[in-house]
C-alpha cells in the first residue's frame, strides 16, 4: 500500500463509529440506522432493479437538460463574442437572471410546465446555460487574437472558420464550463425532483424520508455520492481524450 493509510483509517473509523453508535444506542433514533443495514438495503434495491431505474431516469433528465443548456450556452457565447451589439442588448438581462438561485425558479416553472420531465429538464438546462455561456465567451476572447485572426487573413470562409478553427480552439474553455455545469446540473435536477413531482432518485430520497424509512433514504444518499464521483471521473477521462493536446502543449492558464 502506498501512503494512503492514515486517511483511509480515518474514513473506516468514522464508518465504524456510525455502525457502533447506531447499534449500541449511542444515537438512539429510528432515523439513524446502522451502516450495514443501509448497505444491505442498497444491495437489495440495486438487485431488484429499483435503484438502477431511478438513477437511470435521473441521469436521462440531467443529460437532456445539460445538452440543451450547453447548446444554448455555446450559441449565446458565440453570439456575444461575435457581436458587441448582442452583448450590449442581452448582456444585462443575462446578468440579472444569472444570480437567481435555481430552486427558486422551480415554483413558477411548475405552473407553466407542470411537475414532469419538461420542468425538470428546463431546470437542468437553465443551470447548465450560465457557466457554459461565460466560459464560451471567455474562450472566444482568449483565442480570438491569434488563431481566428490568422484564419481570417488566410481567407478561410466564415462557417469553416467557425467549425475548423474557432470551435476546436475554444473547446477547452467550453469543457471547463461544462465541468462546472455537470456538477451543478446533477444538484439542481435532484433538487427539482425533491421539490416537485414524483420522479427519480431525488423524489425517492424525500419519499423515504417521509415514509420514515431511514435505511432507504441513506441508501439514496450513498447512490448520489457515488453518482457525483463517477460523473466527475468520467468527465475527466473524456476531457483528456478530447483535448489532451491542450494540456500537452501546456497552454493552460
Amino acid at each position, binding site marked *: 500500500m502506498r*501512503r*494512503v*493509510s*492514515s*486517511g*483511509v483509517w*480515518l*474514513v473506516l473509523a*468514522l464508518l465504524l463509529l456510525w455502525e457502533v453508535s447506531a447499534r449500541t444506542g449511542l444515537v438512539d*433514533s429510528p*432515523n*439513524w440506522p446502522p451502516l450495514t443495514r443501509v448497505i444491505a438495503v442498497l444491495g437489495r434495491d440495486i438487485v431488484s432493479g429499483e435503484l438502477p431505474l431511478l438513477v437511470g431516469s435521473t441521469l436521462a433528465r440531467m443529460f437532456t437538460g445539460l445538452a440543451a443548456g450547453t447548446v444554448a450556452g455555446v450559441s449565446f457565447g458565440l453570439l456575444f463574442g461575435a457581436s458587441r*451589439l448582442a452583448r*450590449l*442588448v*442581452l*448582456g*444585462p*438581462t443575462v*446578468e*440579472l*437572471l*444569472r*444570480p*437567481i*438561485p*435555481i*430552486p*427558486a*425558479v422551480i*415554483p*413558477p416553472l*411548475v*405552473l*407553466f410546465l407542470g411537475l414532469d420531465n419538461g420542468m425538470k429538464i428546463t431546470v437542468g438546462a437553465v443551470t447548465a446555460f450560465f457557466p457554459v455561456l461565460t466560459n464560451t465567451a471567455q474562450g472566444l476572447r482568449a483565442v480570438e487574437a491569434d488563431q481566428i485572426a490568422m484564419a481570417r487573413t488566410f481567407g478561410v470562409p466564415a462557417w469553416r472558420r467557425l467549425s475548423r478553427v474557432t470551435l476546436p480552439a475554444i473547446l477547452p474553455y467550453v469543457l471547463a464550463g461544462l465541468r*462546472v455545469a455537470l*456538477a451543478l446540473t*446533477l*444538484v*439542481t435536477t*435532484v*433538487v427539482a425532483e*425533491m*421539490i416537485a413531482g414524483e420522479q427519480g432518485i*431525488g423524489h425517492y*430520497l*424525500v419519499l423515504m*424520508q417521509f415514509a420514515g424509512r*431511514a435505511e432507504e*433514504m*441513506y441508501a*439514496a*444518499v450513498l447512490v*448520489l*455520492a457515488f*453518482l*457525483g*464521483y463517477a*460523473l*466527475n471521473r468520467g468527465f475527466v477521462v473524456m476531457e483528456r481524450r478530447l483535448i489532451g493536446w491542450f494540456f500537452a502543449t501546456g497552454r493552460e492558464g
Partner: protein
Amino acid sequence: MARRLLSLVPGLAFIALLLAGLEWAVDAGLVRRALMPPPSAIWAVLQDLGTSGEVLGPLFATLRLVFIGFALGSAVGIALGTAMGWWSAAFRLLEPLVEMMRPIPKAALVPPLMLFLGLGDTMKITSVALAVTFPVLVNTLQGVRGVDRVLLDSARTHGWGTGRTLRHVVLPASLPFILAGMRTSLGLALILAVLAEMLTGQGGLGFLILDMQRSFLIRQMYAWLVILALVGLALNALFGWAESRALHWQQRN
C-alpha cells in the same frame, strides 16, 4: 464612468421592452393572468411589501443564513485546505475523506441533516456551510501547493516561523485561488439556503416563494422571486467589490 453608464442603456432598454411586452401580452389575454400576472401588478405587490416593511423579516432571515453559512464554510475550507496543502500528514489524513464527501450533491444531505439537527437554524446553516466548504477547500489546497518555492525559501532564510510564513507568504499568494473558490461557493450558498428554507418550510425567501405558489398567491410569488433575484445580484456585486479590494491588498503585500 459616463461611457460605462451609456453602455448599459441598450440592455436596460431591452429589459424595459420585455416587461412592456409581457404587460401587453397579459392584458391582451395571450398569457393566463392566473399564471403570469402583469409586471405592473407584481410591482404593486413589491411596493406594498416595501412600504409595509414586510419584506425585511424574510430578507434578513435569508441573508443571515447565507452570510453565516458562507463565512463558516469558507473559514473551514480555508483552514483545512491550508493545513492539507502545508502539512503532508494532514493531507494524507484528510484527503480520502474529502474525496468521499466532495462529490455528494449537498442538496441530498438536507433530508438527513433535518433528521439530526432538526429544522432550525443549525440545520440550515450547516447545509449552507457544507456546500461552501468543499470548493473553497479544494481551491485553497491548489493555491497553497502552487506557492512559489523561491518565496518559501526566502521566508525560511529570513528565519520566519510557520505561522508567519503562512500568513505573510502562503495566504497572500494563494488568495486568487481562494477567492475563485469562494465565488463558486457563493452561488452554492444561495442555492442551499433557498432549498433548506423550502424543505423546512420556515422563514426566508425560499419558503415564501414555495408557500405563495402553493396558496396560489401568484403575484406575491413573483414579487418574492424578484426580491430574491435582487439579493443574488447584490451579493455578487458585493463579493466582486470585496474581491477587488482583497486582490489590491494582495498586490501591495
